[in-house]
């Protein structure tokens, strides 16, 4: 059998590996379309023939759920939000109300994902607000259209610091984590998964996402597997 999977772009590395394992084990085929969660959710709403949807954003999962096509759904993964730096010498940063982020940037920009639209940006903004740092820094935030672009800006040194998920930072050797935002500083970061068809392959893939093998892969990529 075959499955069509729509998944948030930031899951590509991990999910590709999980899917390869599943294909090897079952002899099935997985077609995975990676794009922004919003684009995928709209396509599903418009009738895309999809078996599995993994969103980086509970909000978009809600809009898909409203279509009534969702057969099963649960939160699959969680993630941490981290502050990353380009300069390998950059010292660890202690997040607190008194942090002078602006001085840290030395005139550069703080890279984030779109703070009103893309989940990573929304979480990041919430976290900075939590520490009362947002208002002081918002003019110096460069917002990219997704987390990967944020990561790239820091990796290239176009921005000295950036806020991404832990899973992104893990994979990019040109950046390193200088601080991890505490979980209570922002709404919980959740990757909900949904099954939209009842085919055997869809059931099988959906189950494989929760398998120990998958958990190993996700963990290795910096995600936290939710039990």
């Amino acid at each position, binding site marked *: 059998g075959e499955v069509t999977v729509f998944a948030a*772009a930031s899951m590509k590395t991990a999910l590709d590996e999980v899917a390869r394992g599943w294909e090897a084990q079952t002899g099935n085929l997985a077609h995975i379309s990676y794009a922004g969660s919003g684009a*995928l959710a709209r396509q599903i709403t*418009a009738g895309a023939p999809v078996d599995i949807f993994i969103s980086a954003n509970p909000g978009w999962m809600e809009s898909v759920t409203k279509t009534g096509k969702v057969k099963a759904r649960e939160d699959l993964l969680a993630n941490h939000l981290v502050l990353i730096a380009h300069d390998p010498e950059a010292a660890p940063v202690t997040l607190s109300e008194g942090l002078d982020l602006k001085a840290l940037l030395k005139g550069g920009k703080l890279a984030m994902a779109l703070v009103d639209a893309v989940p990573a940006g929304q979480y990041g903004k919430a976290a900075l607000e939590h520490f009362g740092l947002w208002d002081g820094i918002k003019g110096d935030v460069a917002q990219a259209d*997704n987390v*990967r672009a944020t990561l790239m800006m820091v990796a290239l040194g176009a921005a000295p610091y950036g806020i991404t998920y832990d899973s992104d930072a893990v994979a990019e050797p040109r950046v390193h984590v200088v601080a991890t935002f505490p979980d209570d500083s922002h709404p919980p970061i959740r990757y909900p998964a949904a099954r939209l068809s009842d085919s055997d392959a869809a059931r099988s893939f959906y189950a494989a996402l929760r398998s120990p093998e998958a958990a190993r892969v996700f963990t290795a990529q910096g995600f936290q597997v939710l039990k």
Partner: protein
Amino acid sequence: MSWLSPPEWQAVVLSLKVAGLATACALPPGIGVAYLLARGRFVGHGLLNGLVHLPLILPPVVTGYLLLLGFAPNGPLGAALARIGIALAFNWKGAALAAGVMAFPLMVRAIRLAIEAVDPRLEAAASTLGASRVWVFATVTLPLIVPGIIAGAITAFAKAMGEFGATITFVSNIPGQTQTLPLAIYSQLQVPGGEGSAAKLVVISITLALGALLVSEALAKRIAARIAGRDA
């Protein structure tokens, strides 16, 4: 080609198919619309002109979104087309539609400029020789604008090869079905450390489009020289 992984190879073939179909299908209406815009005097001229340019003006995502609204299986046009057995959403034909729509204004612009450059006195001469408007177009205007048509088609082809936003929004990014080269490049860029393989795809993309460009260029030059044959 051993240095291309099967999915990469798939993306290359798919891109050529998509851009080729998009260009081929856009050409006849492109010529027609260009002619209307260049020579037509009618109410709604400005409207048509605006409509044609829309995909240029709008962010590609919006165009893709509008296509999705219209042509998705449960969109109004999509449902109608489904009834006659044509499915566009989430397959390569849909990708071609997106690429074609995005490339259309470029094609029309080029052809229209070529038509406007045709000396109307030649068309007048043809009409006195008995050619009706349609014949004048087919036997005089059309041959004279072949270089413009080639230019328009190749610009459209290049654009179609590079189209990203509307495509991913409309037909998603399904390997082997809708994952064209730009989408594959995008996907690679989503993977930390994927720049290397993205770069490979970029090189392929450039090579293909430039190859097409140079071939068409040479062709157009040859035809133009044949047409002009003008002395100093």
